């Protein structure tokens, strides 16, 4: 694979052709926050947290989908980007009801950690106070729309990895909701295999295991890369 050279934050960095800016940055220990992105899932570019500045581009570009190219000059943590990331997470915190103290995911939550990391100690925007339902009709798992950040990891993993495509999105704008089987209670879904992949990948307490208490829900994500690696090997004719 041909190597290319680009500049990230004033350092010359070499990368392989086809790598995304996010991959290159992470390989070199530069931490760019993400929420919708997860290695192994198709990039969506929805959370906008991984935006970076590119010399010659009038607007920041999402590093999760932008391929590294020879001679690129990239800035990952300008004052403006840092401020934009803060605002984006504040928007997410204001959008639905992320009351950490009574969330099953408390202390194990990507959104909570991200907010602290970005230095968010309060939210400057109005809380929208949308009162959303909770779907606890499935035997082992439950869905709390109030915690959902619409990262669509569940939708993508269910479609591309599990192959069930139980999840999808209904509505639009701030009224968008995750729905199972064309909007029926999760418990009555016939396509859901109860595999729990969506639950494990959910960054917040939106999808959780029933019976877990506050702060007890720990999520285990390593399965994703394991599955994908075995598939890749199998596709190459090796033994999985």
């Amino acid at each position: 694979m041909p190597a290319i050279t680009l500049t990230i934050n004033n350092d010359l960095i070499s990368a392989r052709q086809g790598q995304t800016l996010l991959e290159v940055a992470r390989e070199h220990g530069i931490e760019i926050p993400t929420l919708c992105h997860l290695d192994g899932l198709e990039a969506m570019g929805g959370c906008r947290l991984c935006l970076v500045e590119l010399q010659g581009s009038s607007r920041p570009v999402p590093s999760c989908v932008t391929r590294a190219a020879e001679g690129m000059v990239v800035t990952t943590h300008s004052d403006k980007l840092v401020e934009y990331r803060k605002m984006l997470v504040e928007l997410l915190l204001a959008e639905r009801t992320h009351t950490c103290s009574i969330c099953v995911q408390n202390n194990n939550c990507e959104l909570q950690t991200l907010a602290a990391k970005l230095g968010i100690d309060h939210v400057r925007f109005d809380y929208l106070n949308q009162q959303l339902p909770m779907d606890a009709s499935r035997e082992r798992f439950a869905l709390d729309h109030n915690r959902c950040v619409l990262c669509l990891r569940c939708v993508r993993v269910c479609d591309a990895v599990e192959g069930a495509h139980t999840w999808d999105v209904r509505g639009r704008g701030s009224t968008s909701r995750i729905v199972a089987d064309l909007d029926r209670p999760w418990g009555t879904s016939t396509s859901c295999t109860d595999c729990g992949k969506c639950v494990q990948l959910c960054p917040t307490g939106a999808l959780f295991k029933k019976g877990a208490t506050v702060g007890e829900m720990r999520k285990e994500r390593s399965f994703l890369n394991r599955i994908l690696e075995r598939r890749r090997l199998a596709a190459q004719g090796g033994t999985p």
Partner: protein
Amino acid sequence: MNRVELAELAEAVTAQQQSCRMRLLVCCGTPCVAAGSQAVVAALRERLAALGHPADLELVGTGCQGPCSRGPLLTVLRPGQPEQVWQKCTPELAVSILEAELQQSAFPDTNLLPADWPFFRCQTRLVLANSGRIDPENLEQYIARGGYDGLAQVLHEMIPDQVCDSVVQSGLRGRGGGGYPTGLKWQLVRKSSGSRKFIVANGDEGDPGAYMDRSLMESDPHRILEGMAIAGYAIGAEQGYIYVRGEYPVAAQRLRKAIRDAERAGLLGSRVLDSSFSFRIDIRIGAGAFVCGEETALLASIMGRRGQPRIRPPYPAEAGLWGCPTLINNVETFGNIPAIFSIGPQAFNAIGNGKSRGTKVFALCGEVVNNGLIEVPMGIPLREIVFEIGGGLANGAAFKAAQTGGPSGGCIPAEKLDTPVDYENLQALGSIMGSGGLIVMGEQSCMVDVARFFMEFCLDESCGKCVPCRTGTVEIYRLLSRICNGSASQRDLQTLEQLCQMVKDTSLCGLGAAAPNPVLSTLRWFRAEYETHVNERRCPAGVCSMDELPLHLLGEQLLQRIAALRCDGEGY
């Protein structure tokens, strides 16, 4: 049909039309129909029936003639005579005009528009050349006006590269709002490798106050089909789709009929005009989402997926419908194509200003005297549009601002009235050409309220995929609402500006990126109005209710009330 037969048909129909002593063109565009033009058609038809349908009197129900607020409109054509247009035409008036012709007496001058009326005089009609002149459901009338001649010319005289070059030479740019050079886009798709390619016409017009595309599709559907077929030949596509907004059933129905008629006549389908080129067009109907006007969302919708934009690159020119190279242009852009080949790319390029060539169709609305659909050369001063064509503001009100580009655009204040209307100049003012909505506002409009209106539209139409557009628009709307109800503080104003900038810079697609434009633009030109709302809790235009208190004032008031009670010795 081959090229010779096409020319013969055009000649025959033209000869028949010229043999008429009188042609009565009644506007049957939607606004005129709403104003009662169908009764006018019925009355004339009845009278003609009573006369035994004389061959030298022709009644045509046309598409939009232009000055929509003055409908129903009746245009009378007589050989060797200047054309005459009556506004607000009643069935009685129409019949009396017909009678006057029969009796060779003078025409009634009630509601007769002046012969050199600036509304018509200041326009240059290329795209709308046939609108209001032909029956949109009649293929022969389109052919009589030179229709499909451009396609014939292209198929028989040019190789595809030459067609792309001609479009490049014309200087045409995308009329949907983006303003990307059309010829360049065609060349890109032509060069893209792929065994199949597609043409898509974007007819998902959705800006509040804009109806150019609807009118074009309803008034002259064949023009769009011809433009698409030429594009198909130029880039090597055999299939096209027209994506029509679901709210435009008449447009869809007329396009459907036009496609059928063109296919029967051999102008679409297999072996177009006896050449080796085949081209089919299908219609796809939108389901009511503004965001589907965004090209990647539109393509997703055509493919039957959720209508959400995706990140570009890859651009549709490389990977569009089902991963194949796809040329997507606005219907008005396609509407320009036949004009380029009928007057020639050089002549087309001779019209316009700077990098903006040709004409632009605008839906002129708001507080102007003459509301309607107009087509003007690029670079025309805004003042001429508002005060000549538009006839100034209704009731002599003072001009305050003109809004272009709808929810993605901005406003142009009175001091910039002499700005030439073209892509670059509008952008320099913080507005955009947009798809062509042009809303004129007088002193009675509150600019904060206007910004709030557009923001409400955007938050409602956001698809929800990216955070800044999904939630940022809601928060911007809340801040604007606070300014409008009197409870905002200076800090809210700061937050508003920060948030607008952020949403503009970080949104995934054009909808979100442009959503803050109405706010940023009104802040730029009418900042004082915002300040008055916040600092003095007063709406200068008298529109906003201003009936709430900022929280800190509420607290202060309570403290003062308690202090006063204590002085009175009443205690709390």
